[in-house]
C-alpha cells in the first residue's frame, strides 16, 4: 500500500506523469496479451483477437495524437495535415507488405503487385525499389514524412506563416496529396490503395501471435516515444518551444532563431506520425488515399482537444476515449456519430479549453481543500 502511495505521489510531482503512464500502459498490454494467448477461448476472461487488433489500432492512433499534441499543445502550431504524415508512413509499410506478397497475388507475378499487373505495367517504378528490404522500408517510414515535414516546415516557418494560415495550408497539403494518391498513375494503387497483405518478416499477419506481438510492439513504441517526448520537452529545447508558443516575437527578439526550433519540432512530430502509420497498417490490413482526407486530419485534432492539449497523456487519453466512443456509436447509431463528433468539437472548444485532463485538474483544485480537511491521510 505504501509503495503504491509513493508511486502515486511520484506521479503527482510536477511534470512527471511518465512513470504511472508507462506502468498502466504496459500493465494493460501485458494483461490483454496474456488474456489472448494463455486463457482459453471458452473462458470469460479471454480477450478476443478482434479486441487485441482494436486495441492495437487505438494505440497507434494514440501515438498519432501524441505527435499532434507535441506541436499543437507545446508549440501552438495547429496542423490540420498530420494525417498526411501518418498516411505516408503507412504507405511505406504498405509497400513493404505488398512486396512480401510475392507470387501469392491474384496474378501470381513475383515482382509486381497485383494492381501494377492490372495496369499493364512492365517493371517496378523506381520508388518501389528496395522496399522489399525491411530495414529500408522502415528507414522510409521515418525518412519520407520527415523530409516532407522538413521541406514544408522550412518554407512555411522561414516565411513566418503562422496561425490559421498555417492550418489552412497544412490542410491543403494533405488534400493535394489525397488527390495525387487517388491517381492510378502515381503507382500506389490509386483508389483501392494497398491491401491483401500476407505476412510481415515471415510471420503470418492473420495469426493470433503476430497480432498480439504487433499490439505489444505498438505499446512499447508508444511508451518509448512518450518518454522521449517528455525528455525533449523538459530539456532546454523544450523550454524554448513553449516560450515560442506563448510569445514568438519576444523569443525572437531575445535572439533565438525560432523557425529552427519550430522546424525541428515539426519534423520530430511528423516522424512520430509516420511511425504511427507504419504500426497502423499491418494491424488494419489496408492503406488507401482516404487516410489523406482532410476530415481524418482534423478528427485527430479533436482527440487531442478532448483529452487535453499540452499534456502528453491527455492526448493519449483523448485518442483512446474518442475512438472507443466512435467504435461503440457507429455500431449502435451509424448516423448519429457525426452529430456527436461535431458536438464534441463545439463543446470542447467552448467549455473544456484544456480538455478532460484539464477538467479533472479544475475539479481537483476546487475540491482539494475540503478533501484535505476530511481525509488528511489520503
Amino acid at each position, binding site marked *: 500500500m505504501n509503495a503504491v502511495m509513493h508511486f502515486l505521489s511520484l506521479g503527482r510531482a510536477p511534470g512527471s506523469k511518465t512513470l504511472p503512464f508507462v506502468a498502466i500502459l504496459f500493465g494493460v498490454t501485458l494483461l490483454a496479451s496474456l488474456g489472448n494467448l494463455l486463457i482459453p477461448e471458452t473462458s470469460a476472461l479471454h480477450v478476443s483477437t478482434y479486441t487485441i487488433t482494436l486495441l492495437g489500432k487505438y494505440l497507434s492512433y494514440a501515438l498519432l495524437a501524441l505527435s499532434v499534441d507535441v506541436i499543437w499543445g507545446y508549440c*501552438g502550431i*495547429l496542423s490540420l495535415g498530420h494525417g498526411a504524415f501518418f498516411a505516408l508512413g503507412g504507405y511505406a509499410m504498405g509497400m513493404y507488405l505488398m512486396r512480401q506478397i510475392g507470387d501469392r497475388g491474384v496474378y501470381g507475378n513475383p515482382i509486381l503487385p497485383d494492381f501494377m499487373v492490372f495496369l499493364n505495367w512492365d517493371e517496378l517504378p523506381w520508388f518501389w525499389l528496395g522496399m522489399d528490404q525491411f530495414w529500408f522500408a522502415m528507414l522510409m517510414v521515418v525518412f519520407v514524412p520527415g523530409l516532407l515535414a522538413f521541406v*514544408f516546415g522550412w*518554407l*512555411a516557418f*522561414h*516565411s*513566418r*506563416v503562422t*496561425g*490559421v*494560415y498555417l*492550418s*489552412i*495550408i497544412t*490542410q*491543403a*497539403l494533405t*488534400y*493535394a496529396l489525397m*488527390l*495525387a494518391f*487517388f*491517381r492510378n498513375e502515381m503507382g500506389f494503387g490509386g483508389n483501392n490503395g494497398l491491401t491483401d497483405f500476407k505476412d510481415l518478416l515471415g510471420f503470418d499477419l492473420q495469426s493470433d501471435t503476430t497480432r498480439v506481438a504487433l499490439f505489444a510492439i505498438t505499446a512499447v513504441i508508444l511508451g518509448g516515444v512518450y518518454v522521449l517526448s517528455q525528455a525533449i520537452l523538459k530539456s532546454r529545447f523544450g523550454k524554448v518551444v513553449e516560450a515560442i508558443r506563448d510569445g514568438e*516575437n519576444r523569443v525572437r527578439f531575445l535572439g533565438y532563431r525560432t523557425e529552427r526550433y519550430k522546424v525541428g519540432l515539426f519534423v520530430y512530430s511528423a516522424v512520430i506520425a509516420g511511425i504511427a502509420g507504419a504500426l497502423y497498417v499491418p494491424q488494419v490490413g489496408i492503406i488507401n488515399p482516404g487516410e489523406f482526407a*482532410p476530415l481524418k486530419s*482534423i478528427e485527430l*485534432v*479533436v482527440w487531442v*482537444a478532448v483529452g487535453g492539449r499540452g499534456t502528453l497523456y491527455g492526448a493519449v487519453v483523448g485518442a483512446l476515449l474518442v475512438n472507443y466512443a466512435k467504435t461503440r456509436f457507429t455500431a449502435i447509431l451509424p*448516423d448519429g456519430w*457525426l*452529430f456527436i*463528433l*461535431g*458536438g*464534441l*468539437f*463545439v463543446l*470542447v*472548444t*467552448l467549455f473544456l*479549453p484544456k480538455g478532460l485532463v484539464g477538467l479533472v485538474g479544475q475539479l481537483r483544485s476546487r475540491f482539494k481543500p475540503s478533501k484535505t480537511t476530511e481525509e488528511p491521510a489520503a
Partner: protein
Amino acid sequence: MKRLCLWATLWLLTSTALAESLFEQRLGELTEASLAETQSLLEALEAEGDPRLLPLFDALFNGNLYYRDADQTLVAADPNTGDAPYIGILSGEVIASLNEDNVTKVRVNNRLRRYLNDALARLKLTAPDPAIREAAVNELLTQLNADTIAQLDVLRADEQNAKVQQALDTALNLYTAQSSDQVGARVQAIGELSSSLQNAVRNALARLAEDEDAPEAVQNAAAESLNSIEQKFTFYGYVDQLFFGLSLGSVLLLAAFGLAITFGVMGVINMAHGEMLMLGAYTTFVVQQLMPNAINQSIWVAIPMAFLVAGSVGVLIERCVIRFLHGRPLETLLATFGISLILQQLVRTIFSPLNRRVVAPDWLSGSWQINPALSLTFNRLYILIFALIVFALLVLIMKKTALGLQVRAVSQNRAMAKAMGIKTDWVDALTFGLGSGIAGVGGVALSQLTNVGPNLGQSYIIDSFMVVVFGGVGNLYGTLVAAFSLGVANKFLEPITGTVLATTLVLVFIILFIQKRPKGLFPQRGRAAE
C-alpha cells in the same frame, strides 16, 4: 380610283381565301389517298407554297403525322415522345383531348420518304426564317452534287440576308474546290474557304490536302487553308477554356466572398462556410418542391430565401459559438468545423444522403452558339454575370453604407473602432450573416451547375480557402482576381495534366506562393508586428 382600290382588295382577299381553301382541301385528301397517289398530292401541296408545309412534311417524314378519327383533322405528334401532346397542323395549337386511341397514323413508304427528304431541303432553303435557311445550307455541305449546286446558285442570286449569303458562298466554294476542272478556280475557292468554321469544310479540306490525285497546287492550297482553320479552332478552343475557367472562378468567387469578409473583419476562419453553400442549394431545391408549377420563377424566390436561410444560420452560429471564442482563432476553426459536421449530418438525415437534382429554368438551359467552333452554355454565362453583380453590390455595401464603414473600421483596428463607439458585437454578427448569406446565394448558383448533395460545400471549401489566401484577406478585389486566376489556371492545366493533377498543381503553387507572399496578393497594410 376608290372603287378600283376596293376591287383590288376584295380580289386579293378572295384569292387568298381561295388558296387557303385549296390547301386545306388537298390536306383533307391526304388522309384518304392511297400511297401511290400521295406523292402527286404532296407535289401539288408543295406547289401551293404554304408556310405550314414545313411542319407537315417534317411530321410526315419522321412518321409523326396522325389524323383525328372523328373528323380527319391532321395533327403532328410530339417529336420527342412520338405521342401526346398532338399539335394541329392547320391551327398550330395543341389539341389536348387527343391521345393514341383516337388518332390514326398517316402511312409513308421509302419512296415517299426520299421525296420528302428532298422537299424538306427545298422548303427549308426557301423558308422565310433566315436561320432555317442558313441551317439548311450548312446541312447540305456534306451532300453537294451538281443538282443541289444549281439550286443553290439560283438561291444565291436572290438571297438578301448576309449570313445566308455567306453560308451559300461556302457551299458553292466547297463544291468548286472539290470538283471544278480548272486548277485556278479550285485554288481560289479553297483560299476563300479558309474563313469557314464548318466541320464539313474542315473535313473536306483535310481530304483534299491528302488527296494524291489532286493537282499539287490544290493540295498545297488546301493544306494552307486547313492550317488557318485549325488555328482558328485552336483559338476558339482557348476561348472556350477561358470561359470555363471564368465560370469556375465565378463559383469560387461566390463561395469565397463570405470567407474573405469574415476573416478580414473577425480574423476567424469559418470552416462551416461550405455548408452555407449547401444550405443555399438545398433552399433552392425546397423552393422548387414548393412551387412545382413555376420552375422558371422559383429561382427569383430562391435567391432571397437562400440569403435569408444561410444568413440567419450564420448569425446564429456567431451568436451561439463564435463570440465566446474571441481572440482564439484556432479554437474557432475547430468549433466551426464541428458545426459543419453537424449541418452535413442534419441535411443527410432530413433529405437523405442521396443527391437531389434542381431543375434549371428554361432560360438557363441551352447554349449560345457563337459559331460552329464556340458555344457558351447559358447557365455558366449567367452565373458569371451574377457573380459580378454580387461583387459590385458588395463593393457598394462596403464603400457606401454605414455598415460598410463600420465593418472596415473594425477590420482595421478593432479596439479603436470600439473606442469610437462602434458596436463591434453587432458588426460581427451582421458581417457573419452577410458573409453566410452570400454563400447561400452562391449555393443557388451552384445548384444550377451540379447536383445538390450533403457534401456539396466540402468540395468547394478548400478551393475557396485558397482563393482567400491567394487574394489576401479582407480584400474584395484580391478575392476577385484570385478566384478568376485560379479558375482559369485550373481549366488551362486540365487538358494538359488531367483534372486531379491540375488541382494538385494549383494547390502546390499556392502553398509555394504563400511562402513568398504570406499575406496574399493584395495584403492589407498595417503597422502591427503581428
